[in-house]
């Protein structure tokens, strides 16, 4: 290990000596961040296996982009890409291919970035059943720096584009041999059902490279992974090496609880954890700025649609009216959550981008209104009994159980409050907090009456926004035998048979943004009317940003703050050198 490092260092020195362009010293600053990385031996440097830098147990979906970069960075505010590795990108004229030209640059060992890197990456990804290959039929290097992604018959569209632009390209120098084997298998006509395919997948998973070649300005070795923090070192050969202002990125290990004192003490300057309101207050009191950034999801109240009376539309609508969502948001995550406004199935901030104006106008906002809720309950055949509880024609109360994950403070808070409000309104709900894995399992199995999970998501495409929970935790998105919410996706609506599942899958296809918006609007209106789940709120993280250590965060309300972590504002500003040590 040591020897290899030495060689790399030597190489770097030589490179510095021979290439005056790269002759520069590492910047001085240290960027103190945090990520709950795993320790070796679990932690390794294979980009394609669980436990590696790209895994959530590795360095996670923000910092990994500083090491091995994707083609682009997505602006949620303008729905456009900015190039990271890519110099130019786009569909060809007939939309059969996606063509990317890679910037002129090198890996950390000095070997140039080439189109072959992308080909190698996708060859291995194919063996690993990457979702990208649902849309592609081939990936071809046209010349040294141009790579073409050839769509299959149904693949062309913005969904595929996002996958391509966000995939982090691995170095051919490390993975060429494995990619060759993969290519050979494909050429031989093997499929994922063949034993050779599985064997190769296993071989890929077990591969342990000694060095992590970086296209980004930082890299690390296993020796850099300490017990309490790990260090990403600046390397001189990246496209961004000249612009970043930090010589080291220090990632403190730990989750919310163990990082809190470090933030308070100024050991961590920027954190992406979700800190509870009392802690946020402590940060503010300590003079630490909080930057509000959406996490891209919120808490949704889920119903099991086999359960009476949640199979009645009016009851679900009444529930939507009966919950004060602003209050609910406060108890979900303090000021780090806002009550859902549009009830459209996509994030409020995305409504104007994703839906057509007509549909937006028609959306029912379900403003808090217990009288309207009571009317709906009466329409559904319920009356209030002496205790003010709703009873149906047979005199039965709505006595149900609400399962919530005990470990998730935000979801548990949302649930506790929703139950309190609904009981106030006249329901008879018992809250049961159980371990989160059990909650997920119960929801999957349909073994619940009311529960909570996330809606929307960290993907800007409408189809992905609609995906959860209506597809994810419904029979259509689950394995055989699991029914989840069991909300019927094929039904008659306004005199027309529709397949909601197909509608959602189709929302983001093709290239006509207006048509997409209209399709999305239609889905939004259906969800808005039927209320198969109630999107209670949208959660944001109040990211502590310590301005005595770092500088360069834009003023509050900057459009860059619209994107969740995958397209985080920090990525762009860090790479461009805007975020820099305070006082420099």
């Amino acid at each position, binding site marked *: 290990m040591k020897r290899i490092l030495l060689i790399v260092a030597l190489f770097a020195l030589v490179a510095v000596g021979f290439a005056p362009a790269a002759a520069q010293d590492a910047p001085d600053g240290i960027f103190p961040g945090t990520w709950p990385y795993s320790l070796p031996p679990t932690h*390794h440097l294979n980009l394609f296996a*669980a436990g590696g830098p790209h895994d959530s147990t590795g360095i996670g979906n923000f910092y990994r982009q500083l090491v091995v970069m994707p083609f682009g960075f997505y602006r949620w505010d303008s729905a456009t890409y900015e190039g990271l590795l890519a110099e130019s990108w786009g569909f060809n004229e007939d939309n059969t291919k996606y063509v990317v030209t890679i910037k002129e640059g090198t890996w950390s060992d000095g070997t140039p970035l080439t189109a072959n890197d992308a080909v190698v990456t996708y060859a291995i990804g194919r063996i690993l059943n990457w979702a990208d290959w649902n849309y592609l039929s081939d990936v071809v290097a046209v010349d040294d720096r141009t790579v073409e992604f050839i769509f299959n018959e149904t693949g062309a569209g913005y969904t595929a584009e996002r*996958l391509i632009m966000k995939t982090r390209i691995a170095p051919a120098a490390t993975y060429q041999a494995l990619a060759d084997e993969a290519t050979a298998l494909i050429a031989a006509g093997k499929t994922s059902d063949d034993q050779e395919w599985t064997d190769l*997948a*296993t071989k890929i998973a*077990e591969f342990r490279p000694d060095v992590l070649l970086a296209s980004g300005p930082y890299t690390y070795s296993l020796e850099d992974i300490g*017990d309490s923090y790990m260090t990403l070192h600046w390397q001189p050969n990246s496209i961004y090496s000249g612009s970043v202002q930090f010589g080291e990125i220090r990632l403190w290990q730990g989750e919310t609880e163990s990082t809190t004192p470090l933030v308070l*003490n100024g050991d961590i300057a920027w954190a992406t954890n979700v800190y509870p309101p009392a802690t946020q207050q402590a940060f503010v009191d300590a003079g630490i700025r909080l930057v509000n950034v959406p996490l891209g999801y919120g808490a949704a109240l889920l119903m099991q649609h086999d359960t009476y009376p949640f199979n009645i539309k009016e009851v679900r609508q009444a529930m939507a009216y009966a919950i004060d969502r602003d209050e609910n948001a406060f108890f979900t995550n303090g000021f780090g959550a806002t009550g859902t406004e549009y009830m459209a199935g996509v994030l409020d901030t995305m409504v104007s981008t994703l839906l057509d104006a007509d549909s937006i106008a028609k959306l029912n906002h379900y403003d808090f209104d217990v009288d309207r809720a009571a009317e709906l309950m009466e329409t559904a055949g319920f009356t209030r009994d002496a205790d003010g509880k709703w009873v149906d024609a047979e005199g039965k109360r709505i006595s149900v159980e609400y399962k919530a994950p005990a470990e998730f403070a935000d979801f548990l808070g949302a649930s506790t409050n929703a139950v309190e409000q609904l009981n106030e309104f006249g329901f008879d709900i018992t809250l049961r907090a159980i371990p989160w894995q*059990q909650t997920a399992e119960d929801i999957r199995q349909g073994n619940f009456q009311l529960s909570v999970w996330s809606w929307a998501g960290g*993907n800007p495409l409408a189809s992905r926004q609609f995906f959860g929970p209506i597809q994810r935790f419904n029979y259509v998105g689950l394995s055989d035998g699991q029914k989840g919410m069991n909300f019927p996706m094929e039904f008659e609506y306004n005199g027309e048979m529709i397949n909601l599942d197909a509608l959602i899958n189709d929302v983001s296809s093709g290239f006509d943004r207006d048509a997409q918006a209209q399709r999305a609007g239609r889905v939004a209106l259906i969800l808005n009317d039927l209320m198969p789940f109630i999107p209670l709120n949208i959660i944001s993280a109040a990211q502590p940003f310590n301005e005595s250590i770092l500088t360069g965060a834009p003023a509050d309300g900057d459009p860059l703050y619209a994107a969740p972590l995958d397209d985080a504002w920090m990525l762009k500003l860090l790479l461009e050198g805007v975020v820099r040590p305070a006082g420099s």
Partner: protein
Amino acid sequence: MRKLIRSYTFRTVVQGLITIWAVMTFTFFLIRLMPGNPAQIKIDEYVDRYGMSEDQARQQVATLFNYDPDQPVFEQYVDYLSDLVRFDLGRSLTSTETPVAEQILRFLPWTLFSVGLALLVAFSLGVLVGLAMAYWRGGLLDNVMTVFASVIYAIPDYIIALLLIMVAGVQLKLIPVGELYGGSTQGIEPGFTVEYILDLLKHAFLPVFTYVLATIGGWMLTMKSSTISTLGEDYITVARARGLPERRLLTAYVGRNAMLPLMTRLAISIGFVVGGSAIIETLFLYPGLGRNLVLAIGLRDYTTMQGIFLVIAISVVVSNILADLLYGWLDPRVRLGGDKGTE
């Protein structure tokens, strides 16, 4: 042969092996009853993050993980057992190339060091103070220490830990929290050097201090009550009448006899060395086995969990045997496991 079977050592070893097997089997099936499995957790991640369908994610996870959720549990058990008799703990389910044994070797020493040190400090301090409390019963020391011990004993260790960090670390700035986190400072070469050992002690300070605070009250109170009943024994009065100096009286007569009932507790505590440290290690970012266990439980890494549980079971059994030996050394009446002295 018959003599061997009847021998105390042989019986102890066999009993220990049976206990280890029983605990291993129990935990094996127990952890497979946990909701979710390693594959499902990864599948959820892929579905959420990469927009794969459930089936697609399932397929990809199957290629990444050594784990087939559809294999009958009993078959898994037989496989595991047959590996185990060859001293093979298997590989981590969530990091396929990582042998469980390697993980345990990496993390166990830290836990042994920190919790062992804490146990040593808490036990010896607690026993000394408890002895003094009983000896000067009703005095100032006794009263102050009883209050201290009872209060501290009642506060869960993780709250002690949090208070330690928040009050002493953040508010009063007495402790440089970040500097003390972790197991050792990066860059200091491991070895038998003063610098490295001091560094180890420095980093172990927070967890050790917490463990000591959390357990010393129990030792003090137990030792005190044990000493009080020993002080009432005739041989103490007799020894005093023989004109023995107080120091000899306190050590060989009172202390040694009063400590006997504590030995069982000590054995049990040693067994908890590994398991009891989970939350504290997580809070202090200490690279021990407990923190690794929490991670493994979160990821449902069955083989890793299984390996750690096995280590815990073995450590309990071994510490019980050690405690027996120690007990025998301290109390001649139970030497060789027999009560033969009483007539």
